């Protein structure tokens, strides 16, 4: 398995929000990709947006602009 790194992981209330996030980030050329929610955050299922810690400001700006509300923004080993 690949070595884990500290990443920024955004979780959402719904899958629809996660998909809106991917679309918005693509449109705004913001970095990151969808991954399954890591166990460290929540056992279960669902999608989250994973990117570098340094992208936090950029991501938050996109979310604010397009009106996506996150469940939480985590810094965790992914």
């Amino acid at each position, binding site marked *: *398995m*690949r070595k*884990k790194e500290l990443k920024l992981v955004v979780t959402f209330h719904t899958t629809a929000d996660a998909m809106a996030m991917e679309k918005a980030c693509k449109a705004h050329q913001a970095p990151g990709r969808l*991954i*399954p*929610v*890591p*166990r*460290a955050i929540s*056992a*279960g*299922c*669902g999608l989250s947006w994973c990117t570098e810690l340094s992208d936090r400001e950029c991501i938050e700006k996109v979310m604010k602009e397009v009106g996506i509300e996150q469940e939480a923004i985590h810094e965790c080993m*992914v």
Partner: protein
Amino acid sequence: MIYLDNAATTMQKPQAVIDAVVAAMSSMGNAGRGANEASLSASRVIYDARERLASLFHAESPRQIAFTCNSTESLNIAIKGSLRPGDHVITTMLEHNSVLRPLYLLQEQGVDLSIIPSDAKGRIDYADFEKAIRPETRVIVCTHGSNLTGNKVDIARVGAIAKAHGIRFIVDASQTAGVFPIDVQEMHIDILCFTGHKGLLGPQGTGGLYVREGISLPPLKSGGSGVDTYNTHHPQLMPTALEAGTLNGHGIAGLAAGVGYIMETGMDHIRETEQRYMWMFYHGIKDIPGVKVYGDFDTQDRCPIVTLNIGDYDSSEVSDELLMTYGISTRPGAHCAPLMHKALGTVEQGAVRFSFSHFNTEEEVKAAIAAIEELSKEE
């Protein structure tokens, strides 16, 4: 991409299914809403789908097949339409949330619920059904195959128990319809709930239910029916009783083609191919150090699913690595079967599910085995 998530949906569809949907989209009017040629064309296609499904499941008549959007809708109709406060219902730990959540809701409304336990391999003891039955038991509802482990339930055996006690028997055939033979008469199934987009190889948004003649289910929805316009109530006759509003005719055309494909290709051939891939994968990974496989592999009679974990790695990490490094699509995490995860001890870790289609190839299975070998070696 190597697609091994066929228990979620069979992504690769027969060309006949694709062609049928395309043809329907350029020719179909609204079924049962007039006698113009386009409307009749839709009615004929949908009736043909009913006939094929009735034949597949050995229903008394095509009229006993109603169409819905998916198994979840079918199960909601069947479960909520069969139970009243004060009734008792029996189910199992193998169930999907599409069975459990309607039951939990009814429990809050005064329905008493018994859940047959599972052992750590996802197996149930059939004697537990008999033990759980009471005078007020009205329904037994269970899956034909676990979406998490692939373990099958002997529904003929459960059906015989239900029949002996005069209890309505509802089966969730989401993981088995189209791959395993289902005979609602021989198996004493009163209501069979199926989805169109898995083993039946049809489009998503299609599904339905078989309801035994003589059972009247109150509909979840009422509305347009194409008949009996001046009646203030929705018609009670099957299948109209459960089909308010315009059906997904384009999708149902694809579903009919899916059933046609299964009949032409042979369900036995499809099942044997899928099981061959499952066993090949299972034997390829079961002895790899650190790999833990869930479910009962002591029997040959199981759905083409292998669910595993590697060490204590998060299942979502393993699944993500399989996709990013090897291009293999699987499903990680919790699989909408909360009690099954509890029984297996995978609530926290989740599990990585590999599920096979007859459209897969041996090369793809070998690649998946090699990927697990590599991943389990790495620190």
